[in-house]
């Protein structure tokens, strides 16, 4: 529980500082172009890493289980332009059904 509060405090304070840095400190000066390019690519790099680890990692092992099936179902739903919440529900349902069937 105290671990959770440490995370809440650190992420909260850090995010507030990141959001406020430009408006409070920088005024109207722009960031240097190379910095801007790298920062802009952090989100795609990290989100892709999160997709991969959340689907495949189990502790320090790579495993193929019902989560991958859920992810495949989510990809199909996204290709059909389903809203995000529906995509998440479909992924969870696909994984749950696969587990009921004894897969993963």
């Amino acid at each position, binding site marked *: 529980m105290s*671990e959770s509060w*440490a*995370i*809440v405090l*650190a*992420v*909260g304070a*850090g*995010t*507030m500082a*990141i*959001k*406020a*840095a*430009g*408006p*409070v400190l*920088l005024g*109207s*000066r722009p*960031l240097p172009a*190379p910095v801007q*390019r*790298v*920062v*802009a*690519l*952090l*989100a*795609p*790099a*990290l*989100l*892709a*890493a*999160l*997709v*991969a*680890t*959340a689907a*495949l*990692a189990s*502790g*320090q092992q790579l495993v193929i289980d019902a*989560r991958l099936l*859920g*992810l495949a179902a*989510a990809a199909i739903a*996204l290709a059909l332009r389903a*809203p*995000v*919440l529906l995509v*998440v529900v*479909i*992924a*969870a349902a696909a*994984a*749950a059904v*696969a*587990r009921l069937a004894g897969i993963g």
Partner: protein
Amino acid sequence: MDQAPPIRFELRRGAVTAIPLAIAVGLFGVSFGVLSASTNGMGVLPAIVMSATTFAGSAQFAAASVLAGGGGPVTAILAALLLNARYLPIGVSVARFMLGGRVARFVQSQLVVDESWAIAARGGGEFDPHRLVGAGVVLWCAWVAGTVIGVLGGEALGDPRTLGLDAAFPALFLALLLPQLDGRRARAAAALGAAIAVVLVPFSPAGVPIIVAAGGALIGLVRR
């Protein structure tokens, strides 16, 4: 203040435009609440406080995912903050349009999220601060209320694995990733990030592969 009517107009315009998005954000908050209240989640009260103070969905899900995967608090914090680093250039882009002194600007800056930023955009790199505040307040309320509903409902749910909730994380991150892949560099950074993470999983503690994967963004330094 002879400016009062237009200010109220833009505030309301921002708020009204945000309502359809707020419904989606609220439902998104519900899923964050449900996942936080389940086993290996961060717990009811921390989840609510986090939504109220951090107010950044993808970073909160990243922290929750690292925790659920057995990662430590430091890796969870780093992963979330790296993901929120995009608010640095976003904050800079709206900085010169914000009004008032340092305190007022601080408060306005906290209401910046992807959606309120998009609503406040007037085109040509210009932003309306009142529209930003109107939209930001509505989205914040939806996010926090959704989280509260989620944690309360989530406590009643059983084992998250039986419900396939662990498959909700990769699905959600995929949904957040797709709109970000708007160029060759972004796709290269994503491919690199995923590859780095997968390769590192067997060799490093949980959560660490995600942080190292941030290095995929360095491809932005490569010319063309």
